[in-house]
């Protein structure tokens, strides 16, 4: 793990403005790549908003996860596998597994208090309302992001390599 400051996490590692062809020999679209990089954090923030809005507004873990997944799809479409590997540092199966574990554990926790599986409680912290189903949503969010990135890796990158 490199120790760069957080504002450089997303900085391109390859000389992307200097070459006009990517590793597959396809012409690169500068406009699309730059826009995708600019939009990327915004889309992720939107996805987190949707995740938190979930309990009594439209949104939720599934929707949020899909939107976050779309952010990665955008990067992949713009820059191919180089872009994707630059963004994704963990192996997607681990993300899927972690998400599913969180969701299942959340489902099981209420039984420790003698309540049925999947019971939701709402905690009130002053003006902030927190439903325990949020943890389930976080699990689902991770699961969906993992699945989308995994799909990009297997259906996108490996098919590119098959060719």
């Amino acid at each position, binding site marked *: 793990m490199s120790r760069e400051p957080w504002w450089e996490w997303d900085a391109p590692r390859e000389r992307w403005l200097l070459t006009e062809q990517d590793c597959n020999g396809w012409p690169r679209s500068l406009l699309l790549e730059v826009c995708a990089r600019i939009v990327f954090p915004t889309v992720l923030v939107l996805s987190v908003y949707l995740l938190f809005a979930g309990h*009594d507004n439209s949104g939720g873990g*599934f929707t949020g996860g899909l939107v976050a997944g779309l952010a990665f799809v955008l990067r992949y479409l713009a820059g191919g596998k180089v872009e994707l590997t630059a963004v994704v540092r963990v192996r997607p199966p681990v993300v899927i597994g972690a998400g599913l574990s969180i969701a299942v554990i959340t489902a099981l926790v209420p039984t420790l208090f003698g309540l049925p599986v999947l019971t939701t409680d709402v905690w009130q912290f002053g003006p902030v309302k927190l439903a325990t189903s949020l943890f389930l949503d976080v699990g689902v969010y991770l699961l969906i992001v993992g699945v989308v990135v995994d*799909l990009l890796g*297997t*259906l996108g990158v490996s*098919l590119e390599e*098959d060719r």
Partner: protein
Amino acid sequence: MTINITMAVLLAGLYSVGFYLLMQRSLVRVILGIVILGHGANLFLQGAGGPPGVPPFAGLAAPEVMVDPLPQAMALTAIVITFALTTFLLALAFRSFVLLGHDEVQDDVEDRRVGTTAERNDLVQEAAP
């Protein structure tokens, strides 16, 4: 319960197109058939909830004028499942295309066996006289 006539006609169309495509020999058409059939089934589930009404959010309106949320939840789940399986099917079809080099659905194994036995018998009979 009554069903909207447009909806009924649409459903009938989707189901017949879906089943028609499912009977084809080309794998891509079979998959399209599954996709269309899936849309039909999910729309049907949605339609089973009754006539349209106010969105079922608490406090938006009186419960009597709201639509039934249960079929919507079920349809949403079913849509996600059919979507995921369609993706899987497409990947499998691509794999099959890479491995076999064509996208034709082959005959059933038993059919082929019966076919070859029949052909062999014909040849024997022709050779006999």
